[in-house]
């Protein structure tokens, strides 16, 4: 019997106010990756967090040889953090999730076989453990993608995704806001690649601070969507 092992994986997670989450997340990620590939790296993108997230990340990099840290000198936002992660990733499959442990990386496991048929696989949250405001925000995001780009994704900005290297070598990422997920999915589809969707559970946040509802985050996301729509991004 042939078991599925991916050739090599670059995993990254953006981290902001996640000093309480990283010491639990990173060991889980290392254990998980060891079970699905022989070659991997873990990149923590520390996004200029004002707390001691940076120090905690550096400690983890000292502890695990596969872990390295990218520090943003100041907070550049979610999109910029993802871009840094994608740029730093060196291996064949590029996997990411958030540093806040609201997703369980082990939920990738049953669905990695999808990569035999799809170029990108993305989770969609069965239900989100967030406030009504965040839920509405997420829904609006998906509706805007439909209205502006005529694509419908049930949960475009679910941060449980794996990209094959050749997709990232083909598409050019330009957003620095949270539109990045939408932009990448749209460009993936336009380039003729296939996206497979699988269900994941969104867990309650145990520690850290959510920044997704910040008004500037929302404004930047909508600005990038519109710029992309009119061809200026």
């Amino acid at each position, binding site marked *: *019997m*042939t*078991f*599925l092992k991916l050739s090599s994986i670059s995993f990254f997670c953006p981290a902001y106010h996640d000093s309480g989450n990283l010491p639990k997340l990173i060991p889980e990620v290392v254990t998980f990756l060891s079970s699905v590939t022989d070659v991997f790296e873990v990149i923590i993108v520390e996004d200029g967090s004002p707390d001691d997230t940076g120090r905690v990340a550096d400690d983890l990099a000292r502890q695990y040889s596969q872990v390295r840290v990218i520090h943003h000198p100041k907070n550049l936002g979610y999109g910029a953090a993802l871009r840094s992660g994608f740029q730093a990733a060196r291996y064949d499959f590029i996997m990411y999730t958030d540093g806040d442990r609201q997703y369980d990386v082990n939920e990738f*496991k*049953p*669905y*990695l*076989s*999808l990569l*035999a*048929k*799809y170029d990108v696989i993305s989770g969609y949250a*069965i239900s989100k453990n967030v406030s009504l405001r965040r839920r509405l925000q997420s829904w609006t995001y998906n509706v805007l993608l439909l209205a502006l780009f005529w694509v419908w994704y049930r949960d475009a900005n679910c941060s449980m995704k794996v990209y094959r290297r050749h997709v990232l070598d083909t598409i050019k990422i330009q957003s620095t806001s949270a539109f990045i997920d939408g932009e990448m999915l749209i460009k993936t589809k336009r380039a003729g690649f*296939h996206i*497979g*969707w*699988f*269900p994941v559970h969104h867990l309650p946040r145990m520690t850290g601070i959510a920044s997704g509802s910040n008004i500037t985050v929302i404004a930047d996301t909508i600005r990038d969507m519109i710029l992309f729509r009119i061809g200026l991004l």
Partner: protein
Amino acid sequence: MKQKTILITGAGGMLGDAMVRQFSDAWKVVAVDRDLDVTRSVDVEKYIKKIKPHAIAHLAAMTDLEYCESHPAEAYATNALGVANVVDCAQRLDIPVIFISTARIFNGKKIFHEHDAADPIGVYGQSKYAGEIIARSYSKSIIIRAGWMVGGGPTKDKKFVNKIIQRVNAGDVELKIVEDALGSISYTYDVASTAEYLLTRKAYGIYHCVCDGGATRFEIAEFVMKELGLAKKVRIARVDSGHWKKEYFSPRPASERLANTILKKMNPSLTRPWRKALSDYLKRFQWLDR
């Protein structure tokens, strides 16, 4: 002379038995079981190219829930990667594929229709759902979701109906049956005839192929004993699923009920009440040791 060839993988199982019988009338059937390792893409491709089938019924799967739960890598390899290997090759050669999925892709919180969102619990359900997502990527796939399988007779039926009858044959006069497990029955011979019906009509898509009405394990056991004339001889005791927790440790949805909406709309004669199907099954074979 039979013009068309169908390749049936996993043909040695309960459903495979019914599928081989069903398709043998009009098709040339090539049946494979464990002799083809579906997790090996090279072997799968070589085999399909050698047989040159006009259709593939991909039944090969790891279906023992407890084994899947304790051997997840094997379950994902057979039930998901195996599907990718078959579907990928079939797609390149433009061969339609029938894929058997399961009610266990749902979380059991209601009666599920064909387009409800999946939320599998346990390794088996997740591995089958991964297989289903892969099968769905191919436009010429027929995805049949089944419930509690009934079929195969005393020699091939590895499921509930035969298990309880064999316990009676072994001398048990009391059966402890769970009353809190609810599901829909899929009668293998009906599933097989539906599969041929859909394939010949090129009706690609997702279907729930179950008998009408839901039943608890207790109701099924009661019906089986009554039909076999054992109602007075065998006592059926109600227990809850916690009773068998040690033996059946894999997480199971509380309900595995499916609504067969699309099939019913397409052709009402494709489905029938579970009691009728079960009665037919019990009459088909000699069950009791003399």
